[in-house]
């Protein structure tokens, strides 16, 4: 049974991409997924890269609560599951920025170059090939809100999803460093104090 709805709940939509080592199909796992209350999600996959996707429309008082309860439920239903990321994707191309902000690619390109708008567009997070830059959506959404007073729809969750996805990545990397305590300690030194228990 999904979490009970009450009058302050809203419906939150998001996707969880995960890997289930050794699983070629989700069919044997559907009973467990329903028992864990995941029947508010559509399950798809596997994709060519072996990942599965669960698209949730989950009732909860807040977006973060919806996401966390969904991740907990997936973990309970699917022992050994590797949670890769929660979408909407934080890494965005120029075209994805245009789609999310209702602009043309050219308009966004001019904004990124400071040739239109107030300037100060966030620096790219990286290049995926010689010609294609990508940005962190959390940074871009905040710039649209602060610099242009045009907060993109759904942008209010960008910072949370960016941090959560980084935490999921860090959990995977910490597993890789399990047998290398010196390197693990080195990483721990740089964990932000906001994210370490008091």
């Amino acid at each position: 049974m999904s979490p009970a709805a009450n009058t302050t709940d809203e419906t939150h939509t998001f996707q969880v991409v995960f890997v289930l080592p050794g699983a070629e199909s989700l069919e044997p796992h559907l009973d467990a997924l329903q028992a864990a209350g995941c029947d508010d999600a559509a399950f798809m996959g596997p994709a060519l890269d072996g990942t599965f996707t669960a698209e949730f429309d989950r009732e909860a008082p807040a977006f973060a609560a919806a996401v966390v309860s969904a991740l907990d439920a997936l973990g309970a239903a699917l022992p050994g599951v590797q949670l890769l990321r929660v979408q909407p994707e934080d890494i965005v191309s120029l075209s994805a920025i245009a789609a999310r902000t209702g602009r043309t690619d050219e308009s966004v390109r001019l904004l990124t170059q400071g040739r239109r708008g107030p300037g100060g567009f966030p620096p790219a997070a990286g290049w995926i090939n010689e010609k294609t830059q990508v940005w962190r959506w959390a940074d871009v959404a905040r710039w649209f809100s602060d610099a242009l007073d045009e907060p993109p729809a759904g942008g209010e969750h960008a910072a949370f999803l960016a941090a959560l996805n980084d935490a999921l990545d860090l959990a995977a990397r910490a597993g890789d460093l399990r047998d290398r305590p010196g390197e693990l300690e080195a990483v721990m030194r740089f964990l932000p104090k906001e994210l370490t228990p008091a």
Partner: protein
Amino acid sequence: MRAKHPKKEVEAALQEAESAGFRVQTGRGHWGVMYCPGGEEDRCPAPFWLWSTPANAANHAKQIRRYVARCQHH
């Protein structure tokens, strides 16, 4: 003719998907499974598992419609 889905909102979304070339196979999983028109190279990703008693039938219908809208193969 396949069996109709017990939830009318879901059945309506499935019929729209079938009109767009998606294939619904009943008797699998909890009720059935849907495949996009793409073949082995599908990236949608397929298959889409259909609940017989989803937590919210209207939302399950929306999930089907979003999947159809995102599909690159039709």
